[in-house]
């Protein structure tokens, strides 16, 4: 029920909220602004109006071969997510539609694997990668990222699938639907939104992963997170260049993220807050 609020109060809240929002967003905004400056402007002191020079973007692409890490990021994020979905959809499906006494325990156990600190298995994973030649390969990282996010994917899908009412299935069966009809015409259309939001959230998580990507790559398979981390020890003027590289690295995921706010809550709290 919307409560009547005086116009002045509303304007007061609006101003306060916008100030807070702009302060929080400021580092991102300032990075985008700086990326449009020349290097001289970038270090010339605080200024919110750039000269809209695109030279930094050109430099990053020509000097640092930006497209390789970008391609790697896309392949790693999308590849690991699709792989996780292939494994997780049947599992979540089975647990949602034919639960057993142990289903809850299995789900809790899967969640517990997510609690394992990555650094605890750094030594064995690193050594395995060194010895099997997986170091600095995309396929190795795709596997690691897939395993890392698999518990979240199963959980999210499970909470979505559970919301599909069983009565609909029964009704379809009464009307003489075969198992194939059931899956194709009844369940799939209802499951697609859940699968889509799981996909979206997982791509964001995989794109932003920055522990394994830094540990297990050098150049060939390095995605943007590892590429940007290599900017930590720069030479010479580089503020605008760093900003351009950063803007390009976060822009795609920022936009995806804006579309998936609601799913974010659900996915990251394992359904505990809806």
């Amino acid at each position, binding site marked *: *029920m919307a409560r009547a*609020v005086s116009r002045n109060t*509303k304007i007061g809240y*609006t101003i306060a*909220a*916008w100030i807070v*929002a702009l302060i*929080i*967003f400021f*580092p*991102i905004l*300032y*990075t985008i602004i700086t990326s449009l400056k020349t290097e001289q402007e970038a270090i010339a002191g605080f200024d919110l109006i750039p000269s809209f020079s695109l030279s930094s973007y050109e430099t990053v692409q020509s000097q640092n071969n930006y497209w390789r890490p970008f391609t790697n990021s896309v392949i790693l994020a999308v590849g690991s997510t699709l792989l996780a979905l292939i*494994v997780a959809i*049947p*599992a979540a499906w*089975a*647990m949602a539609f*034919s639960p057993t006494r142990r289903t809850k325990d*299995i789900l*809790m156990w899967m969640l517990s*694997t997510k*609690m*394992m*600190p*990555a*650094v*605890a*298995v*750094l*030594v*064995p994973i*690193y*050594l395995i990668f060194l010895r099997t030649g997986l170091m600095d390969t995309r396929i190795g990282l795709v596997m690691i990222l897939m395993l890392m996010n*698999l518990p979240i994917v*199963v959980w999210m899908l499970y909470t979505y699938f559970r919301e599909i009412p069983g009565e609909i299935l029964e009704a379809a069966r009464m009307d003489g639907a075969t198992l194939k009809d059931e899956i194709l015409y009844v369940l799939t259309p209802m499951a697609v939104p859940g699968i889509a939001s799981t996909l979206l959230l997982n791509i964001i998580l995989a794109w*932003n992963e*920055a*522990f394994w990507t830094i*540990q297990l790559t050098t150049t060939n398979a390095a995605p943007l*997170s590892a590429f*940007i*981390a290599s*900017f930590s020890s720069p030479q010479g003027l580089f*503020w605008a260049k*760093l*900003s351009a590289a*950063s803007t390009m690295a*976060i822009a795609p995921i*920022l936009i*995806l993220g804006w579309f998936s*706010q609601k799913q*974010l*809550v659900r996915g990251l*709290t*394992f*359904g*505990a*807050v*809806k």
Partner: protein
Amino acid sequence: MATRQTASLARLMRAPAIILLLIWMLVPLGMTLYYSFLNYNLLNPANTSWAGWFNYQYFYSDPAFFESIWNTLVLVLGVLLITVCGGIGIAMLIDKPIFGQGLVRILVISPFFVMPPVAALIWKNMIMHPSYGVFADIAKFFGANPVDWFAQFPLLSIILIVAWQWLPFATLILLTSLQSLDGEQMEAAEMDGAPALSRFIYLTLPHMARAITVVILIQTIFLLGIYAEILVTTNGGPGFASTNLTYLIYRAARLNFDIGGAAAGGIIAVILANFVAIFLMRAVGKNLD
């Protein structure tokens, strides 16, 4: 309805996920446990021998170990304090009737989608840099001396960066919880003359308690593993002033090539994370029924 056929089909559908996760958990963790009892250095692999508890004793007697445990705690608690208090405040503000609510929401949650190395480098160079950062510009504007954040307050600087990254998460979850608060109950309290503070303490806070618990527990899991932010800003220094347990283990493994020591540290990290995990599992488990 669950015939034997569908039951076995279900088992077959569950199997790949379970087997993969089982391997992912047991094999590396088992190897870590095994390595933690070895004298094993990658610079001198021929001299590998059984070490017994030596790695644990060594880790335990290293002053950097306690410093890193302390830093881990300060980092986690500092970020939690900022994000939970800030999150409650911002969530309540956004929940009010305001113009452009959707856009405000988008601006506020944006930092969460910025990958850790980018977030840390933006703050390091654009905001906190002692000569070119915005903080320095502000200080100069007021005629004060700019602060060299990463040299003078390394841990605090990292806390600020990480808090900026996680504030959106706390805000978003607390906002979700706030939006399910019963408006009529609130109105009744208001009509009965309950002041704003009592309404907050007796209605809003208890309603958000569960969401706050979830925020604290989930963030703790992630905050224990903070790594990239330290790598690109302070490199754990000066000395060990901003080294957390994750970073200490990384140093042992990757910079000192001390496989045994890093493995022992890894086991300690697992034990630490387990304390938190047990509470989180209970909170989530309750919701499953």
